[in-house]
């Protein structure tokens, strides 16, 4: 069996929050991510879904090296990517890149497209002008832009085109893993399809692995191979996309799916018939039904991910 491309093992991220008190005596720990583990295979699209504050973005930032994990390991091809023994920014840059949500804030307004694509190449030791030009031209073509547009500045592009530039910048160093942070949620509806199609085409063409952070389950269903559902720092359910969307089991997953504003579901209410259940048919209990927020300042209630079908795991209360 080949080793997975990326291995995240028992990742914890905690933030100290000064909770008042004159000398910071009320300092509390915010448990943002509580023991996340997952593998990412080559060429796979893994989606992490959940609502704001569930820790999905913190997880992504940890993988990108922008947020130091408090505990746990992240390995890329067996080598640590974060924590002790981790490589510097330069090596990590060739492994993982990111596409940002807001195409307006993610491009430097004072750099033309060419500069923002050429600078990382130069930084990574590619200095021959012909090679830089060649790679930029090929990349622009890959994302559906023309080489003539390279001299333009971000404000001369539409939101969809900016997102294409953002994708080009993420791919210019030829990383194997791309983190997609809500890649289409800031775009106009008619543009979303173009970007989704582009991402799927590029994945196939370049053999990319995606980690997609999203709250939009229709997009997740369309793009993912596997899905992790996060709720307040923990994975409550994980499985293949069909397992998650056809047999959602955890009450929170069911609530999420039922809440999608999908025209078909709205017009045919039968489709939204996933009523949250407090227990599994065999009587095992869930820790939370996903309707109330747990206290994020306390360590989580002990629980475990239990396999209910091959590859389909759900968080249940520990029987101990």
């Amino acid at each position: 069996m080949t080793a997975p491309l990326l291995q995240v093992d028992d990742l914890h991220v905690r933030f100290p929050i000064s909770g008042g008190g004159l000398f910071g005596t009320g300092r509390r720990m915010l448990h943002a991510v509580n023991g996340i583990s997952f593998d990412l295979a080559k060429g796979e699209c893994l989606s992490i879904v959940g609502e704001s504050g569930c820790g999905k973005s913190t997880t992504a930032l940890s993988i990108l090296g922008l947020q130091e994990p408090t505990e746990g390991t992240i390995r890329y091809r067996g080598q640590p990517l974060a924590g002790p023994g981790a490589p510097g920014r330069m090596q990590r840059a060739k492994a993982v890149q990111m596409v940002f949500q807001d195409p307006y804030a993610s491009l430097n307004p004072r750099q033309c497209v060419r500069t923002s694509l050429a600078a990382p190449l130069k930084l990574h030791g590619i200095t021959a002008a012909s090679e830089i030009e060649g790679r930029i031209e090929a990349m622009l073509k890959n994302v559906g832009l023309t080489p003539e547009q390279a001299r333009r500045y971000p404000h001369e592009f539409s939101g969809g085109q900016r997102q294409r530039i953002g994708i080009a910048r993420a791919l210019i160093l030829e990383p194997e893993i791309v983190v997609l942070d809500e890649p289409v949620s800031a775009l106009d509806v008619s543009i979303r399809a173009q970007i989704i199609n582009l991402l799927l085409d590029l994945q196939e063409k370049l053999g990319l692995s995606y980690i997609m952070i999203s709250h939009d389950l229709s997009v997740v269903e369309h793009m993912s191979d596997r899905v992790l559902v996060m709720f307040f720092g923990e994975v409550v359910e994980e499985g293949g996309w069909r397992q998650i969307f056809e047999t959602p089991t955890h009450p929170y997953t069911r609530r999420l799916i039922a809440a999608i504003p999908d025209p078909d579901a709205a017009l045919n209410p039968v489709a939204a018939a996933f009523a949250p259940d407090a227990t599994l048919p065999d009587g095992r209990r869930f820790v939370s039904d996903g309707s109330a927020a747990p206290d994020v300042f306390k360590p989580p209630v002990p629980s475990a991910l239990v396999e209910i079908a091959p590859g389909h795991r759900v968080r249940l209360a520990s029987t101990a």
Partner: protein
Amino acid sequence: MRFGFNFWLGASLTALVILAGVLAPWIAPFDPVLDADLMSSELPPDATFWFGTDGQGRDVYTRILYGAQISLTVGIVSQVINSVIGVTLGMTAGYWGGWWDDLVNGLTNVMLAIPSLIFALAVMAVLGPGLPSLLVALGLTNWSWTCRIARSSTLSLKSQGYVQAAQTLGYGDLRIMFTQILPNMMGPILVMATLGMGSAVLSEAALSFLGLGIQPPFPSWGSMLTDARQLIQLAPWVAIFPGLAIFLSVLGFNLLGDGLRDSLDPHMRTRKP
């Protein structure tokens, strides 16, 4: 980008001061120091001496033209020093945070608590009078606001996607600061520097007036006012014209700064869809 009336008025006044200073050797009718003639002292303005003459019979118009050189040098050099100190401290503090941020913040607050003219006086007292020490004194005393603005701009720019993208692309911290953050906060920094030039010109005048700045017989607008003190009843033009020069140039710098701020304001800029 569109500039308003204020900007153009300020730019014209500033250009006038710059022209006066740069062209002084060619357009000034006399020598500012050597052409002293006690026989023709305290003459009111006429066709030969446009702004009259001072107590030593030197042409006030000539001395004002040369004084513009001093004022401009002081304004520009002190603001360059201020901006470099302020931006370096503010940007690194905002970007790195932690103990360095606390230290810079503390330093900034201390600087803000001391009246800058008093602090400049102290520096001048240590370094002795003269143009170089004047530049150092004014350059070291007014960076706190620039520092604050640089720090807060950095804090907001740091969370922008393109700064995070630069981090993931492997850029080092200094490279990120200079290629991603600094160019995007040049607007407010430039405005601060332009506004600061006005106050630097005023401070130079004040320090020279107190006898700590430019030493006689070299002409600076402040030292000209000092000289005019005894003559103000007899020959008011000796005080009026340097005073007017200070007023107009400070007004010019301030209007220019205001105009720049208005036109660099992101809300005034159009963003194409």
